[in-house]
């Protein structure tokens, strides 16, 4: 599979040894080159940032001012009334707690299970493991959106309908997670394992005591990804949950915006609230996502 070939590049080139010095000679042209590149960068950044900025600033406008012309970028008298209305009206606090429970449990399970699988796929050489790997690849071809109806029936038959477990368990197996760990463990030299074996370590304790600790950056990266996936899930919770007391945040927002007459003040407030946890998680762990360089670890 093509994906598996990626780490090889790092082994062959000594490229990353001096990343800062790329195109060393050209640095003298400094300022003349900095201007167009910097301009382009910030024009693009503005293009990407403006929609969010407009959205967030609008959410601070009082409901009456939202549509008053001329539109102003900054609210004239900022208020949080939209937020309060959203928080109180639609049972939002309950949705928040539900979503948090789902995210935390699903993330822990996903990281643990993917780490084990990724290690097995990278460091053991059995025929049936290869078959299993192809099976995991196949899950990307058949995402749950494609199998909505049959997956729903299975989860219902397992007695998980209308429970948070029904959202969590089907989401734990992710091909992306397994890939990430597999690619990381492929870059770990086999000699490390051989040495531990010679020292008499048992297979599982090699995994738990050597491999799990060194894979920490991947764990954090996958944890952030998984948290984001589950926080943003919409269609599966929508199918699984029947009881409004168990709804997640996304269902709550969609029910606000799907209404006949949209109360934009409440929608804006609710949406911005729902963005906060992810943005906080992201800003705190930024470097683990940004440097999601799967080759971090042993190679320099």
């Amino acid at each position, binding site marked *: 599979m093509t994906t598996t070939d990626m780490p090889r590049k790092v082994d062959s080139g000594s490229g990353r040894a001096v990343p800062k010095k790329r195109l060393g000679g050209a640095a003298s042209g400094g300022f003349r080159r900095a201007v167009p590149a910097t301009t382009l960068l910030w024009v693009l950044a503005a293009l990407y940032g403006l929609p*969010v900025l407009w959205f967030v600033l609008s959410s601070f406008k009082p409901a009456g001012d939202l549509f008053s012309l001329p539109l102003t970028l900054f609210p004239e008298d900022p208020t949080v009334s939209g937020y309060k209305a959203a928080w109180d009206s639609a049972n939002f606090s309950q949705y928040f707690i539900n979503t948090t429970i789902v995210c935390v449990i699903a993330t822990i399970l996903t990281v643990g299970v993917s780490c084990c699988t990724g290690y097995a796929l990278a460091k053991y*050489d*059995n025929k049936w493991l290869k078959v*299993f790997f192809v099976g995991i690849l196949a899950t990307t071809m058949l995402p749950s959106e494609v199998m909505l109806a049959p997956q729903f029936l299975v989860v219902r038959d397992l007695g998980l309908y209308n429970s948070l477990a029904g959202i969590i368990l089907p989401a734990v197996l992710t091909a992306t997670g397994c890939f990430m760990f597999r690619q990381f463990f492929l870059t770990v030299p086999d000699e490390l394992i051989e040495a531990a074996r010679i020292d008499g370590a048992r297979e599982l304790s090699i995994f738990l005591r050597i491999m799990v600790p060194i894979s920490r950056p991947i764990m954090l990266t996958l944890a952030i990804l998984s948290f984001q996936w589950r926080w943003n899930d919409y*269609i599966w919770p929508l199918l699984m949950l029947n009881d409004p007391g168990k709804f997640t945040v996304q269902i709550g927002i969609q029910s606000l915006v799907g209404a006949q007459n949209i109360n934009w003040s409440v929608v804006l407030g609710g949406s911005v609230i729902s963005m906060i946890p992810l943005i906080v998680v992201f800003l705190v762990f930024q470097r683990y996502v940004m440097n999601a360089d799967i080759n971090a670890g042993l190679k320099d």
Partner: protein
Amino acid sequence: MTKRAPDVSASPPRSRSKYTLAPLVLIAANAVLFALFFVWPAVIGLVYSFTNYTGVGAFQFVGLDNYSHLFGDSIFFDALTRTLLYTVLFVPLNFVFSLLIANVLVSKHAKGVSVARVFFFIPWLLSPIVVGVLWRWLFGENFGLVNYLIEKVGGSAVPWQSNADLSLIVVVVAASWAWTGFSMLLFIAAIKNVPTSYYEAAALDGAGPWRQFFSITLPSIAPTSFIVILLNTIHGMKEYPLFASLNNGGPGTSNNLLVQYIYQTGFKSGQIGYASAASFVLMLILMAVAFMQLIVNRRVENR
């Protein structure tokens, strides 16, 4: 594992294959999940696609009836062509912008990269539902900022919501905007892994930035480009929540995509068998895309 005579002690088996228990324990949890939530639904989905099952009670096998109905179902075809059109627009737009931004971000000439990065990344954090709400707010026909600005400079209000094609374009732009962060990350990692010596050699030979990009960067990151295109194609084919919140598949039903069609036939009208048949058509398309891209990629790599 492999076929070998029992007494060949001279050529020992590959050292790793003697471990069976440890890998088995390690993959056990995922194997169970795989069987429960992938194999089982896939099998019953395939079986149900040949039946008239409604989710409860008894069902009859109807042979290929579901599939032959499907091919005569104009609603299904509309959904299918709309989905393909959406994907064909979304994938290249996202590809070009992510690659451009990734290149600007790794360029050492640009200033303020670490701050600008956050701007590209935040849209990716947002849920498709929120992205839809956000762009609906931006492109509202009577109240949106975009139409306000268009009228301000003398244009007339554009029917972003009531024209089916414009409505689709808004979704395409919104999706590309939201997915840039992810594709960009993959590209950045790939570009950083291109050995610097290539660029140094090219610079010595007098190759300019464009030449370096097309002759070194682009071929070197081909595997990543392949993954980005593959992931985005799959993502595009199964889009639903973004449409749900942006225009609810509208105006009318003109922007109902495949997943929405499957959802509605399966869960709103209870035709599980029929919806399963539609699902399998979607699966076949996804597999065809994957195989096609795999072949193209092989050819590019072996060149």
